[in-house]
């Protein structure tokens, strides 16, 4: 029998599956077999490569040749030309839009050049349904090292010193959260992975779960050891069937190998994970609502404090972390806190995964070191704006964030700098808008979302988001007056200040930030004959958006 000399990696992420990568894979298999080369080349279904715009992706290893937009009909040429005769199939190579050059390897593509993949380290590299591949790449060593060679304090210290902050949006220091949960005096504790991912346009967590589910299991097990939990939950939205399937397979494999269950690595640490399905409500991503939902109650948030770390799932101390946060844990244990802390900016360490969407050429998933500028992400990695149009703004932080304009594109990205320019890191959604987008409509789009998603528990959010939406509707239909603009502004602050949870507290942000940066566009809708430019008694009480 001939040894395998080639791996044909076919993307099996949701994006590529939607563009027929399943058929590509079938055809490759059939033709490979028909030609009698199925011993020499192996086809491997991987997770997401991130380059969704150009999918389906097929990568040939060890040649490191990267094919894009591969259709089922291209399978024949890949086998007959590349696998059998060693000739690259030129027409399937990626063409760099600005230079018009065909690029052979993943390494040389601008989309990948500036990326640094920690959380996505195995996405596109391994078969997510095969635990042996994960282990062959060093998987579960961090877990073994943690529970056999490190004390709980040492694990927590390492995470603290690494500077890792929560990737779910809030940016709370992960090591500190673990320490608080660890210090709680309780027999029973829980660790929960938040895989609700409700931001429109965001798919970071889904891709990690689909492409490398074992990294989450490993991260959770390390966290469980550190805080003293024996049971973990993954709260995952039911709209992610592929992620659920891969995670279920991964959990079974980990149990079979003894990496979950009783006496892991021969120690007295026991841990297992169960899945809880969410029904796709944005508010259920908020940790207290999430816990209520896990308990079978309505997905409504509670007042904090007490924080879940003190009183969470069924009243027990519970540590809730995001998917991407967990994906970073094993590499930190393996390579050390210093290594992680050497990446990023002063207050934000490591990398961040962003889902690029909207009017951008390379729609897809990217992971960059903190401190990379928005301009680099949008124009170098993202390949600029579609159709050669002009950039207008980018929304980070999803419906909780704000718009960032051209003049702030050189801001190095981290938690604090984004807050400083009126937006936020959020979970990593990045929606790019071009010159043809109307910003009042954008604000309306987000308000429609938060209005629908408001759980109704507190009045400012339930009624406020609806009224904000109605005002925006009136304004965009040309019926608005300066009084409406003034009301919009005041109500925005009222909802922000008065709401119970993060949903309402941040829902007006898109309104506030578009008013600040695109006041003209609001004015263009308003025909107030008495006060054509917004002067007079309608000048807002708040400084935001006031034209001088």
């Amino acid at each position, binding site marked *: 029998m001939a040894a395998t*000399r080639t791996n044909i990696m076919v993307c099996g992420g949701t994006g590529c599956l939607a563009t027929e990568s399943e058929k590509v894979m079938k055809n490759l298999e059939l033709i490979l077999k028909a030609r009698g080369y199925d011993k*020499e080349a192996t086809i491997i279904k991987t997770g997401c490569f991130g380059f969704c715009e150009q999918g389906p992706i097929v990568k040939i290893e060890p*040649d490191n040749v990267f094919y894009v937009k591969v259709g089922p009909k291209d399978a024949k040429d890949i086998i007959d030309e*590349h696998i*059998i*005769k060693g000739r690259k199939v030129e027409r399937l190579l990626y063409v760099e839009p600005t230079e018009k050059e065909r690029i052979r390897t993943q390494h040389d593509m601008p989309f990948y050049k500036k990326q640094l993949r920690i959380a996505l380290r195995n996405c596109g590299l391994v078969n997510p349904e095969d635990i*042996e591949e994960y282990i062959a790449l060093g998987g579960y060593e961090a877990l*073994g090292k943690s529970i056999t060679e490190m004390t709980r304090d040492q694990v927590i210290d390492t995470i603290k010193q690494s500077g890792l902050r929560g990737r779910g949006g809030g940016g709370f220091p992960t090591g500190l959260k673990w320490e608080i949960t660890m210090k709680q005096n309780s027999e029973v504790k829980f660790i929960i992975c938040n895989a609700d991912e409700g931001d429109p346009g965001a798919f970071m967590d889904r891709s990690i779960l689909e492409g490398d589910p074992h990294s989450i299991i490993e991260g959770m097990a390390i966290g469980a050891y550190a805080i003293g939990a024996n049971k973990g939950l993954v709260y995952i939205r039911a709209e992610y069937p592929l992620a659920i399937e891969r995670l279920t397979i991964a959990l079974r494999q980990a149990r079979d190998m003894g990496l979950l269950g009783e006496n892991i690595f021969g120690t007295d640490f026991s841990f297992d994970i169960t899945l809880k399905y969410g029904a796709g409500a944005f508010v259920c991503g908020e940790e207290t609502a999430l816990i209520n939902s896990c308990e079978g109650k309505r997905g409504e948030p509670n007042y904090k404090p007490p924080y879940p770390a003190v009183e969470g799932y069924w009243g027990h101390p519970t540590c809730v972390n995001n998917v991407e946060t967990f994906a970073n844990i094993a590499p930190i244990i393996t390579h050390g806190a210093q290594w992680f802390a050497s990446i990023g900016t002063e207050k934000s360490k490591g990398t961040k995964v962003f889902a690029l969407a909207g009017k951008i050429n390379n729609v897809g998933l990217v992971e960059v070191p903190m401190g990379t500028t928005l301009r680099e992400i949008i124009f170098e990695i993202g390949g600029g704006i579609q159709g050669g149009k002009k950039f207008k703004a980018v929304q980070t932080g999803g419906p909780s964030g704000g718009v960032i304009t051209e003049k702030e594109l050189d801001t190095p990205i981290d938690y604090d700098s984004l807050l400083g320019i009126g937006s936020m890191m959020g979970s990593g959604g990045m929606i790019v808008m071009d010159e043809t987008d109307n910003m009042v409509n954008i604000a309306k789009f987000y308000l429609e979302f938060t209005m629908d998603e408001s759980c109704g528990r507190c009045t400012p959010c339930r009624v406020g988001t609806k009224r904000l939406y109605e005002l925006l509707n009136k304004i965009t239909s040309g019926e608005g007056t300066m009084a409406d603009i003034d009301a919009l502004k005041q109500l925005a602050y009222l909802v922000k200040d008065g709401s119970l949870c993060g949903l309402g507290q941040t829902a007006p942000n898109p309104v506030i930030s578009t008013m600040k940066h695109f006041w003209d566009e609001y004015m263009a809708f308003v025909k107030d004959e008495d006060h054509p430019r917004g002067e007079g008694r309608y000048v807002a009480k708040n400084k935001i958006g006031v034209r001088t």
Partner: protein
Amino acid sequence: MIKSLDDLRKIREEHQNKINLRQHSENGMNTIEVLVGMATCGITAGARETLNTFVEELGKQGLSNTKVVTVGCIGYCHSEPTVQINVPGKEPVLYGNVKKERVGEIIEKHIKGGQPVENLVLHMNFERT
């Protein structure tokens, strides 16, 4: 069942071959490349067997700093199968008439020993592009 870090490492070793082909050293600087010409004339002359022998032997000997790549026709049909060895920092060496029986010698002398197998070398004025 994994009961210790050693158990885990054993499994890691056992399955190393599954992912070897996909691991590229940081910038590919230390990898010795073995390029095998796989054009029609090469295949007729036995290039596929040569190629498979390289993959098998290098795998068997655990030479993980090597990478076997198939390439197209380079126009030396008279001397097929052709094999080119690229050692980082050195001029590429092109071999002709590399039947599978000669593979062992190239691995032993050139890849492991750093000395080209002179009697197989195709002496062309060879500029690496």
